[in-house]
C-alpha cells in the first residue's frame, strides 16, 4: 500500500465556500482472489461502505473502443466531396452525486437528499434510469420552482464543472439503525449527435448511509417530530339546546405533521362529540413539512347549562432543542340556553300557538295486500281449473277449423273412391283422425258414438273379401264422415 497523497480543493460558488480533502492510497494486490477495502470511519460521520475487489492473475485489457471501419473518416466525404458533419461535443467529464443534509437523524426527523449532475459537456436531457428507492424512509418530493434547476459553476479537484440539482427529496426515517439509500442510476443525454440527439450515458450515485437514532425515552408512541404550536376555537360560544357547536383543534408548524393522523381525544360530560373531520394545509419544503392540520369536532350538548371544552394536549419532539414538549390549548366554555331562546332559524313554534294534537290512539289503515295475494292465488287456480276443462269441451266443437276444412276437402276429393276399397277406407280414416285424433281420444258423446260406428264400417271395408263392388258402401261411409265434419262447422 502506498500513500496517502493528499489534495485539498476549495471552491467559491456564488459567494459560498466549499472545501474538499481527498486522501489517495495506492493498493497492490499480493494474491489473486477476493479482496475488500474495509469501511472508513471519520468521527461525526457515518462509515463508508466496504469496497469489494476481484484480484485476477495476468493483465486486464483496457475496454475496447467501438471500431470504426472507416477510421473516423466520412466515406461520403471522399466520394461526393461532402463537408464533414460537426461531431457532438462529448469531450468532457460527467458524473452524478447524491448528498444528504445531515448524516444522522432521529426517527421522524427530516433529511434532505439532493441529486446533482456535474458536467463539463452540454446536456440535452437528464432522467433517472429507475426511480430512486429509500428503504426505511418516508419520502416526500420537494415543491421546486424553476430557479431551483439552474446550474452553477463549481470546481472539483481543480477542474471546472457546471452543477445541476436534478432532484430533491425530503426523507423521514421510520426505523432506527444505519439505513442505506441505494445508488441511483441517472441517464444523461449529451447535446448534439445525429439529428441533435446523442446516445445516453448512465452514471450512478454512491450508496448513502444515515445513522438513525430513536426518539428519547418517554416520548409517547406516534408523537410528532418538529416545532409546533397548537390553538383551538369554537364557532360560537352560546347555542340553543338541540344545536351543535363546532370545535376546531389546530396544529401549526414544521416537521412530520403529515404523518400524525391520530385524532386528539375529546370527551365532554353531558355532550356528544362526534368523530372529527380532518383538514390540512401542508407544503413540503427543504426544512420539513410546513403548514397546519385541523381536527374539526361537532359537539351536541344534551342538556342546558355551561359546558367546558377541555384543554387538549399535543406532545411533540422538538429537534431544535432535542427535547420532548407538550403544548396545551385553553379550555373553552360553551353556554347552552333553552331551546326556546335559540336563534330564529332553530326557534320552535310560538308556544302560545297550540300544537295540533290528536286525542285518541287510532288504528292504522288496513293492509289488504296479503288478502289480495291469497285471492290472486285462488283466481289463478280457478283459471287453471277452467283451462283444464277446455279439452273435453273442445272435443265436440273446438276442433281446428283448418283441420276440418282439410279433412272435408280430402273426403270430397274425386279420387277418393277411384282406388281400391282398402285405400279409400284408409283415406277416410286418416281424414277423421286428422280432426279427432286417435280413437282413444274420441269424446264420449254422440259425435264419439258416430265416429266409432263409422270406424267399425271402415274396418269392415278394409278387411272384407273382394266379393263384389263396395262402391255404394264406400259412398255411404264417406257421406256419414262428411256429415260428422259438417256438423262441427
Amino acid at each position, binding site marked *: 500500500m502506498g500513500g496517502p497523497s493528499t489534495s485539498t480543493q476549495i471552491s467559491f460558488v456564488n459567494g459560498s465556500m466549499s472545501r474538499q480533502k481527498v486522501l489517495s492510497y495506492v493498493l497492490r494486490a499480493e494474491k489473486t482472489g477476493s479482496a475488500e477495502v474495509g469501511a472508513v470511519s471519520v468521527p461525526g460521520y457515518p462509515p463508508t461502505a466496504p469496497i469489494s475487489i476481484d484480484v485476477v492473475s495476468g493483465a486486464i485489457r483496457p475496454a475496447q473502443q467501438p471500431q470504426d471501419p472507416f477510421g473516423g473518416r466520412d466515406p461520403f466525404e471522399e466520394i461526393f466531396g461532402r463537408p464533414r458533419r460537426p461531431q457532438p461535443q462529448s469531450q468532457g467529464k460527467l458524473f452524478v452525486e447524491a448528498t444528504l443534509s445531515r448524516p444522522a437523524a432521529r426517527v421522524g426527523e427530516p433529511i434532505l437528499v439532493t441529486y446533482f449532475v456535474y458536467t463539463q459537456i452540454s446536456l440535452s436531457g437528464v432522467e433517472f434510469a429507475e426511480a430512486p428507492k429509500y428503504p426505511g424512509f418516508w419520502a416526500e418530493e420537494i415543491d421546486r420552482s424553476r430557479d431551483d434547476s439552474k446550474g452553477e459553476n463549481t470546481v472539483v479537484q481543480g477542474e471546472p464543472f457546471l452543477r445541476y440539482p436534478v432532484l430533491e427529496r425530503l426523507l423521514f426515517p421510520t426505523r432506527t439503525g444505519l439505513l442505506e439509500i441505494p445508488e441511483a442510476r441517472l441517464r444523461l443525454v449529451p447535446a448534439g449527435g445525429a439529428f441533435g440527439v446523442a446516445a445516453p450515458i448512465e452514471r450512478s450515485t454512491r450508496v448513502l448511509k444515515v445513522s438513525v437514532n430513536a426518539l428519547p425515552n418517554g416520548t409517547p408512541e406516534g408523537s410528532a417530530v418538529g416545532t409546533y404550536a397548537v390553538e383551538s376555537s369554537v364557532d360560537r360560544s352560546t347555542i340553543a339546546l338541540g344545536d351543535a357547536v363546532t370545535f376546531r383543534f389546530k396544529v401549526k408548524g414544521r416537521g412530520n405533521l403529515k404523518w400524525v393522523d391520530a385524532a386528539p381525544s375529546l370527551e365532554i360530560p353531558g355532550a356528544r362529540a362526534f*368523530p372529527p373531520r380532518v383538514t390540512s394545509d401542508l407544503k413540503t419544503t427543504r426544512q420539513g413539512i410546513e403548514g397546519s392540520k385541523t381536527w374539526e369536532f361537532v359537539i351536541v350538548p344534551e342538556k342546558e347549562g355551561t359546558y367546558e371544552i377541555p384543554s387538549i394536549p399535543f406532545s411533540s419532539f422538538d429537534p431544535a432543542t432535542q427535547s420532548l414538549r407538550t403544548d396545551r390549548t385553553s379550555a373553552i366554555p360553551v353556554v347552552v340556553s333553552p331551546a326556546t331562546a335559540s336563534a330564529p332559524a332553530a326557534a*320552535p313554534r310560538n308556544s302560545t300557538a297550540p300544537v295540533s294534537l*290528536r286525542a285518541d*290512539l287510532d288504528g292504522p*289503515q288496513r*293492509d289488504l295486500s296479503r288478502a289480495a295475494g291469497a*285471492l290472486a292465488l*285462488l283466481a289463478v287456480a280457478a283459471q287453471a281449473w277452467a283451462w283444464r276443462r277446455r279439452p273435453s269441451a273442445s272435443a265436440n266443437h273446438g276442433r281446428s277449423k283448418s283441420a276440418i276444412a282439410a279433412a272435408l276437402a280430402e273426403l270430397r276429393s274425386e279420387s277418393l273412391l277411384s282406388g281400391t276399397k282398402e285405400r279409400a277406407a284408409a283415406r277416410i280414416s286418416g281424414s277423421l283422425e286428422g280432426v279427432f285424433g286417435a280413437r282413444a281420444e274420441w269424446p264420449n258423446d254422440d259425435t264419439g258414438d258416430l265416429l266409432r260406428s263409422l270406424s267399425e264400417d271402415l274396418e269392415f271395408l278394409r278387411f272384407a273379401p273382394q266379393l263384389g263392388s263396395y262402391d255404394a258402401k264406400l259412398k255411404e261411409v264417406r257421406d256419414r264422415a262428411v256429415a260428422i265434419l259438417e256438423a262441427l262447422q
Partner: protein
Amino acid sequence: MKPRLAWLLLLATLLATLATAQAEAPSVVFRRGNEHAARSRWDDAIGEYARLAKDGVKAPSLYWNWAQAASASGRKGEALWAFMSGRELTPGDGSMIREVERLRGELGLDPSEVSLGFLGDLRLLARRFHFDALAIVAFLFSMISVMGKKSRSSLSLASLLAGLLLAAPFVAGSWREPRGVVVQKDAPLMDAPRNDAVALANLREGEVVPLLGEEGEYVKIQDASGARGFAHKNDVRRIGAE
C-alpha cells in the same frame, strides 16, 4: 326437588301476572304524553310517545303527536321521521302528506331527498289509493266469471290481469330497501363503524337515506350525493320502526 320447581314456576307466573296488571294501558300513556305536549314539555311528551312505540303500539295519531312535539321543540329531522312513520301506517291521510311536504320545504330538501325509492314510493301510492282492495274485487270477479254456469273466459282473464296489475306494487314494494331519516343536525358520515373513525361529510337533517347494513351501533348508509359511510343509529332513524 320437583315440588320446589313447581313452587318456583307458580311464583314466576304470579309475578308475571302482577307485572301485566300493573302495566299502564296505552291510552293512558298517550294521554299523559299529550298533557306534556300541551304544556310545552316536549321532551317529556316525546319520552311517553317513544315508550308507546317501543311497546309496539302502531297508531298514526301517536306518530302525529310525536311529530308535533318534535317540530315544536326544533327537532325537524325527528319530526319529519315521525310524520313519515305515521304516513306509512295511514298512507291515505292527507294531513300527514301535507306536513311531510311542509317540513321538507322548511329543511330545504329536494323531493328526491325525502323519497322512499321507486319501489317504496310505488307501494305507498298503491296503499294510498287502496289498490289492495281494488285487486281483491278484481280477483273475486275473475273467479266468479270463470266458475259461473256461463263461463266467460275472456272477461275472467281480463279481471285476473287487472287484479295482478293492481297487486304488483305490493309485491314489488316488498323488495324495497329499508330507509331512514337523518334526525340529527350535522350528523357525521364516517368511514368506519367506530368512534375514532374519520368523518367524511356531514349529513343533512331530514334527508331520507337507504339503510344498507348494520354494524353494532352504526348503520351503513348512502347519502344523496352517493357517498357511502356509517352513521350512528341515534342519528339516522329507520322509517316505520322505533
